[in-house]
Each structure stands twice: as structure tokens, then as C-alpha cells.
């Protein structure tokens, strides 16, 4: 047992959620630099009866706690709280607002595979996967959760210095009639119509269209 309120509370307590991987994170209490502060976390399922312990996040040093498993039913809503402990003192609980994974999780970018020939690039997108506890568990695509998931594909022609974008719903896109022997860069962002969500574009991937065989032939003559 500790003296409650003897310490200032942790601050900035929020859920960082990407593809339903829900990490509770917070900042240390102010004014305790150098002290060996530990933290304890509890969570609550909105509409249920009591706060529940997260045993792996009892008296921990780090300022984050993975609550993905406890909040995996994304149709429900949750609260979480954390308190700071140092020697025989502890802070009051610091609590999150109501967290609704279905509406608040960020949708990660798809996996992007590019193949090219002289004048075209084919783009194959693989929807991001929902967080899963063990790698061997069966995968659930975020597309299964958000059937209206779309992708915003932006294409940058490094030779003309022009960028244009395209919204696609299916997973393959062929850009034909491109300029041969040109470097094109592609970036893709997942998008779900609805309340505004933070978005994470994919890393930029660049690919070179092949040299035009015809002009190579011309050169030989």
C-alpha cells in the first residue's frame, strides 16, 4: 500500500492505436527526474462493472503498456488509467478519455509491390493486417473490418516533376503508357471514409521503367 496523492500524476495519457494494436502511453510526473518511479496500469470496459488489472504492467519502469489483447473487441469502448509509485508514495490515477478502437485506430499503409517493364508499372497492394497476439495466429485483414477501405495512390514522375494521385478500391493498379527509362516514385495511403483519422502513408518506393527497345534498335541501325 502507498500514500495516495503523495506524488503528482503521470500526464499525457493516451492510446496510440495502429491497425488495432493499442498501446497505452504516458509521460512521467513532473518534477521527479532521477527518481526511480514505477507505474501500475488498469483498464475498464465501458458498460462493465469494474476496473481490471493488467498484470504485465504492474510496477513497471517504462511509460507504455500494450493493451491490445484487452481491447481487441474493437466494437467495445474502453478506459485505462495509470498511477505513479515511488517508495511509499503514489499518485492519484490518471485516466484516458473513452477509447473506441473501431473509430480511432489508425489504418496503416498497405504493402506495395511494384513491377515494371518499358512503359508500365503494375502496383499490387496488400491490405494491412489487424494486430494479432502471436505470429502464428490466423491473420485478419483490416479490409475485413472496414469494407469501404480505399487506397490513395500518388505517383511522382521524377523526369516531368509531376505528381498525380488516384483512389483505388481493388488491390491491383496498372499504370500504362509511361515514359520509358524514367524513374517513378509511388506512395500509398489507406483511407476509410468516416470521421477524420490520422493517416500513415507508405514509404516512398521508386522504380525505373525499362529502356525503350525500339529506340535501342534505332540506335543500332
Amino acid at each position, binding site marked *: 500500500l502507498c500514500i495516495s496523492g503523495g506524488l503528482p500524476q503521470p500526464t499525457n495519457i493516451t492510446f496510440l492505436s495502429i491497425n488495432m494494436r493499442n498501446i497505452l502511453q504516458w509521460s512521467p510526473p513532473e518534477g521527479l527526474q532521477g527518481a526511480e518511479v514505477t507505474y501500475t496500469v488498469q483498464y475498464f470496459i465501458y458498460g462493465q462493472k469494474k476496473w481490471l488489472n493488467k498484470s504485465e504492467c504492474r510496477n513497471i519502469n517504462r511509460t507504455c503498456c500494450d493493451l491490445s489483447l484487452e481491447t481487441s473487441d474493437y466494437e467495445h469502448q474502453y478506459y485505462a488509467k495509470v498511477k505513479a509509485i515511488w517508495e511509499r508514495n503514489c499518485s492519484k490515477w490518471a485516466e484516458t478519455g473513452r477509447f473506441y478502437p473501431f473509430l480511432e485506430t489508425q489504418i496503416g499503409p498497405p504493402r506495395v509491390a511494384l513491377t515494371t517493364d518499358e512503359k508500365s508499372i503494375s502496383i499490387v497492394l496488400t491490405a494491412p493486417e489487424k494486430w494479432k497476439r502471436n505470429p502464428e495466429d490466423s491473420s485478419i485483414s483490416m479490409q475485413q473490418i472496414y469494407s469501404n477501405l480505399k487506397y490513395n495512390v500518388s505517383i511522382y514522375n521524377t523526369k516531368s516533376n509531376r505528381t*498525380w494521385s488516384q483512389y483505388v478500391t481493388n488491390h491491383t493498379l496498372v499504370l500504362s503508357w509511361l515514359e520509358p527509362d524514367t524513374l517513378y516514385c509511388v506512395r500509398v495511403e489507406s483511407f476509410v471514409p468516416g470521421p477524420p483519422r490520422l493517416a500513415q502513408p507508405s514509404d516512398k518506393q521508386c522504380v525505373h521503367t525499362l529502356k525503350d527497345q525500339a529506340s535501342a*534498335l534505332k540506335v543500332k541501325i
Partner: protein
Amino acid sequence: VAILPAPQNLSVQSTNMKHLLMWSPVIVPGEIIYYFVEYQGEYESLYMSHIWIPSSWCSPTEGPECDITDDVTATVPYNLRVRATVGAQTSAWSTLQHPFNRNSTVLTPPVMEVTKDGFHLVIKLEDLGPQFEFLVAYWRREPGAKEHVKVVKSRGIPVHLGTMEPGAAYCVKVRTFVKAIGRHSPFSQAECVKVQGETLPLTL
């Protein structure tokens, strides 16, 4: 003590879902007049008729007009009223004669910029706000050509329309669609671009 006159000639001018309430200014020599605008949606007038809501941007305002776009956010009739104040004096409320419904807004053809990147037809549309979708029609300029239609929601960024064949000319026209009021604008003028022919390889 002269009673401050209420503002007169209230009217709403609405274009492309931007709504401006206007009235004749109240003149008191040597004084700055402030106006307070309030509104009431159909919900308030049906269920809470005593409730009037202060406008987002005009409680108070100096000029004889008020942008009520952020207040009129549903497609139902809205009552609007204005009063003038100077110092401690306040005029009576003046209420818009007929409730305003945003489905009466004037929709104009959108401004577009048609460009090409090699053989790719690209369009950039003005940003009219989140309520606007764009219906883009494009076709190859030749007799009997098929018209392609694409719904574009991106605003202010170049969007890929289609791939063009070398040496051909393509034309584009666009109109807006506002789902919240279920109406279209007229089509814009068509704009055409011509694609350079491809340098044919030497045939042996």
C-alpha cells in the same frame, strides 16, 4: 432617448454552399454599430422554440453581413435574426422573412485545370470544401467517341483520369455534386488537350 432602429432588408445570398446573411446597415452618426446574429434550426423551432443560438462568427460583428455557413449545417429550414447595438442601446430583433434552407444554394460549374503527363490525362479541381464531389466526363475528340465518367473527391490535388493514345485529342468537362442537398451544378465548358504522337520506330 431615440430608440435604435432594427436592421432592415435581411436576405441570404448562397453560392456553392457558402451562405451570407446581409442587411441594410443601421446608421448613427459618429457611432460604431455592432450587430448580433442568432439562428434557429427547424429542430429548435419545433422542439425548443425559445432557443436561439448565437452565430459562430457574428456575435458580435461590425459589418452589415454575416457568414452563416458554419451555422447552417443541416438541410432543414433555418430562422435567422439580427439586432444592432451601440453602447448600452440595443435594437429590436429583425427576423429573416422566410426561413433559409441550404438546398437553395446556387451551384456553379467548378474551375478545373486539365493537364497531361506524357500519355496521362490529369485534372486538378478547385477546393470547394468537403461537401463537394466532382463528376468528371472525358472523351476522345472524334465522332461517336464514348464518354467516360469518373467521380472525384480529391480537392486541390492533381488526379489521374485516364491514359491517352498517342496523337489523339481528349476533352474534359466537370460538374459538382453535393450529396447533402442531392443536387448537381451545371457542367463546365469542355477543355481539350492533344497528346503528341509517339515517335514510330524505323520500320525495316
